[in-house]
């Protein structure tokens, strides 16, 4: 024992000094907290952007002095311009999809928890891990920098469809350096994600402690592991897509720009490129991306639920894990359902429609597992569980919309309507956010050694749950009228009558956003003033609860861990730690 601790110290001495300890740290726990904090900041920026958008949608000609003060260019005299609305929309999507939804549940919690859950002292490549955070950070700064350049942020949406995004500033405001910075920012994000995924995979495969067979891994670890594979392949394609886009913009190539384009009566010097090529490359990444966002959420919820329902999930680790693997695999063959009306061959539409519909089967299995695990349970309604239940409800609601959008015939009506916007906010947006909140409330004691205030947590949940449904069910259902997305004002005759509904959504969204201030207050206050957290406040079984809160530098204080069974050792009030040699109580 003495020898092993000495060994550990040689290879992994705790760093001294503030900078090595908290800034350029190679400790996976610090990096996890850095990622989580970055996401939290990004989430609040993204939310404020959505407020500004919603206010503009509801009162497009209103003079709002604070807007004019914040952005004299984008809202001269406090009246937001359409191009600034689109810029805010683009940055809302970019910041939320990449820097919040992709980063928080995977890179944030995954970095902190995955090595602990498998019983390792750190990630396989700690320096690479640090590099991936700082590359993400630079990417985030580049994305934010677009707000401070004269031309403003890009306005071509988070999907950045070419040729709008590729031809440069002839296509209007927001297509100058903002779009270049966007491309570079996302390229950096890709690099960081690739490094992160590599680290996750190697750590899971190579650094499991004795007895931690694959079948005994925590369900969150499983989800991160599967997700790392999906991101590894998907981001590897987005990276060249961004590079080619930047080449088109800066080096004069024509990958995505066809010939004969005329802007402002000027014939453009490009020829031979294909906008559809961009769409294929983007969506080859883009559709797996929504699963990259939701798979960690699956894992977090599956990990949290058994603790609070005090029983294993139906079907043990296998059913839910195989469902996740199926979702991850199928996600690579469905991208064309984003392109049903894009001029792709109608036969290809059929080819993409069928796997898209079939991907519902593993998703339904996952939902059935969660819902039917509640049967005969002994539910403890702590905030993490409430958020998990909220996740299930939102995911069902959002998933249902998928039936309509997976079929080319119905999609040809609903495409690009607010039905789609509501659908993806439910599935990849709010479901993932709810799972992220569940994870936050669940792991906060472990990450910071303090308990969150449970009353404020519950209040935050109730307001968020009601608010989300008020905003997004209305959004999804108004889409049935054909209400077009990405419009900065309602000028079409058929959209003007929707104004009251849009105003309702705006007010609900503002309240929903205000409810997040409760969360912010709770998190900050509890971080410093909350009651001290015990090692295992929830009565859980996985390895992260088998060490102090927060864990020591090498996670287990040089202790030799031996794992004897899977994570779901619950039956009513009883539970057994994974490291406990006692006989299994629940079979898994």
């Amino acid at each position, binding site marked *: 024992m003495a020898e092993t601790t000495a060994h550990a110290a040689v290879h992994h001495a705790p760093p001294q000094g503030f900078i090595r300890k908290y800034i350029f740290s190679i400790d996976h726990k610090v990096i996890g907290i850095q990622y989580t904090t970055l996401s939290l900041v990004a989430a609040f920026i993204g939310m404020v952007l959505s407020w500004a958008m919603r206010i503009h949608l509801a009162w497009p000609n209103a003079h709002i002095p604070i807007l004019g003060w914040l952005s004299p260019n984008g809202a001269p005299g406090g009246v937001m311009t*359409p*191009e600034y609305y*689109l810029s805010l929309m683009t940055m809302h999507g970019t910041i939320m999809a990449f820097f919040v939804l992709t980063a928080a549940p995977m890179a944030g919690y995954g970095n902190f928890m995955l090595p602990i859950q498998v019983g390792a002292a750190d990630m396989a490549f700690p320096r690479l891990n640090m590099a991936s955070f700082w590359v993400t950070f630079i990417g985030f700064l580049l994305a934010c920098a677009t707000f401070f350049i004269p031309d403003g942020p890009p*306005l071509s949406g988070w999907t950045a*469809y070419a040729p*709008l995004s590729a031809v440069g500033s002839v296509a*209007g405001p927001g297509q100058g350096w903002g779009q270049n910075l966007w491309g570079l920012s996302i390229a950096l994000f890709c690099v960081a994600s690739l490094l992160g995924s590599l680290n996750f995979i190697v750590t899971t495969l190579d650094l499991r402690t004795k007895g931690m067979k694959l079948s005994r891994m925590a369900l969150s670890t499983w989800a991160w592991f599967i997700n790392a594979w999906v991101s590894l392949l998907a981001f590897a394609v987005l990276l060249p897509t961004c590079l080619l886009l930047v080449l088109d913009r800066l080096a004069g190539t024509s990958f995505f720009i*066809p*010939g004969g*384009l*005329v802007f402002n*009566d000027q*014939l453009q010097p490009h020829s031979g*490129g294909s*906008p*559809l090529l961009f769409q294929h490359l983007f969506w080859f990444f883009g559709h797996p991306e929504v699963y990259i966002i939701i798979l960690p959420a699956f894992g977090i919820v599956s990990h949290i639920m058994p603790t609070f329902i005090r029983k294993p999930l*139906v*079907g043990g680790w296998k*059913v839910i894990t195989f469902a996740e693997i199926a979702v991850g695999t199928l996600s690579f063959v469905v991208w064309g359902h984003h392109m049903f*009306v*894009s*001029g792709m061959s*109608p*036969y290809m539409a059929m080819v993409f*429609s069928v796997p898209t*519909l079939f991907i519902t*089967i*593993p998703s*339904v*299995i996952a*939902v059935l597992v969660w819902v*039917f695990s*509640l*049967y*005969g349970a*002994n*539910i403890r309604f702590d905030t993490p569980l*409430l958020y998990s*239940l909220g996740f299930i409800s939102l995911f069902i*609601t959002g998933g*249902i919309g998928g*039936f*309509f959008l*997976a*079929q080319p*015939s*119905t999609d040809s*009506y609903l495409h*690009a309507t607010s039905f789609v916007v509501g659908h993806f906010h439910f599935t990849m947006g709010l479901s993932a956010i709810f799972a992220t909140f569940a994870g936050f409330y669940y792991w906060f004691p472990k990450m910071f050694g303090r308990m969150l205030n449970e009353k404020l947590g519950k209040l935050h949940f109730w307001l968020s749950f*009601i608010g989300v*449904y008020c905003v997004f*069910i209305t959004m999804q*259902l108004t889409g*049935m*009228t*054909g209400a077009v997305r990405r*419009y*900065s*004002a309602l*000028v079409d005759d058929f959209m003007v009558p929707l104004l009251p509904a849009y105003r309702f959504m705006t007010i609900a969204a503002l309240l929903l956003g205000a409810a997040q201030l409760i969360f912010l207050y709770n998190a900050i206050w509890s971080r410093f003033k909350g009651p001290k957290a015990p090692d295992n406040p929830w009565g859980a079984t996985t390895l992260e609860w088998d060490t102090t809160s927060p864990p020591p530098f090498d996670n287990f204080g040089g202790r030799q861990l031996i794992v004897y069974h899977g994570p779901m050792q619950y039956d009513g009030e009883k539970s057994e730690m994974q490291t406990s040699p006692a006989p299994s109580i629940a079979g898994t």
Partner: protein
Amino acid sequence: MAGKIFAVLVVLVTLATAYCVIAHVWWMPIDISLHGPKIDQQLEETMWVAGLLFIAGQIVLAAFVFLYGGAKSRTKQIPGGAKYLVIFAFAIVGLEVLGLSVVGSKAWGAVYFEAPDPNSLHIDVQAGQFAYYFRYPGPDGTFGALHPELISEANQNYFGLDIDHDADAKDDIVTAEIAIPVNKPILLTLHSKDVGHSFDVRELRVQQDFVPGLVIPIHFTATQTGRFEIVCTQLCGLGHYNMKAYLNVLSQADYEEWLKKQAAMQ
């Protein structure tokens, strides 16, 4: 207590959503195309299937949360375990999606796999930032060639026609709105002069992107007269929200009258 509140909330949300759908609070507009009813029917069927799954899912979730909130010393698994769940997913949902794929492909095929009627009225459509322009071939029935370098919006040469040298182009009728005769097959060729746009007429149940570099044909037959909006649904820049045009479905006589008036304005 929290569980009961949660259950009640979920049920309320479910009922409210179901009400909005059943009462058609927000619903599709009238359907004026020959192929449209197939799409509507597909949408209705999907709504039934998906709606039932939605209600069942939320209600079962609410019920379990409502029922199993109390502290018990022992827990129990659902009889039969995961086997029945997986079977259910494959059997019911699998059949459902298979059915939707098969039926849906018929609706899709009816619109997109059929060749346009050879007697269709052919109208050329060009989208640009941020307006549509339409072109009728004129008396000679032939469209003039397009010369992008000649496009001059200042001189209202939106298509880049070489009127001085091209006899085919001279009689082309360029309009800012489109009029079509009712009950006549229409063939549109869509091309964009700059970025991606879309041709979306809700009442026709037609939505098709303009892809720069491609000429995309779509065809349909309108069955009712009226004036309908054409809106752009593909993000095209700052004026995206304000990019629209009108589709006038007219009787044959009115259509001819309209076309004559437009020709006089060239």
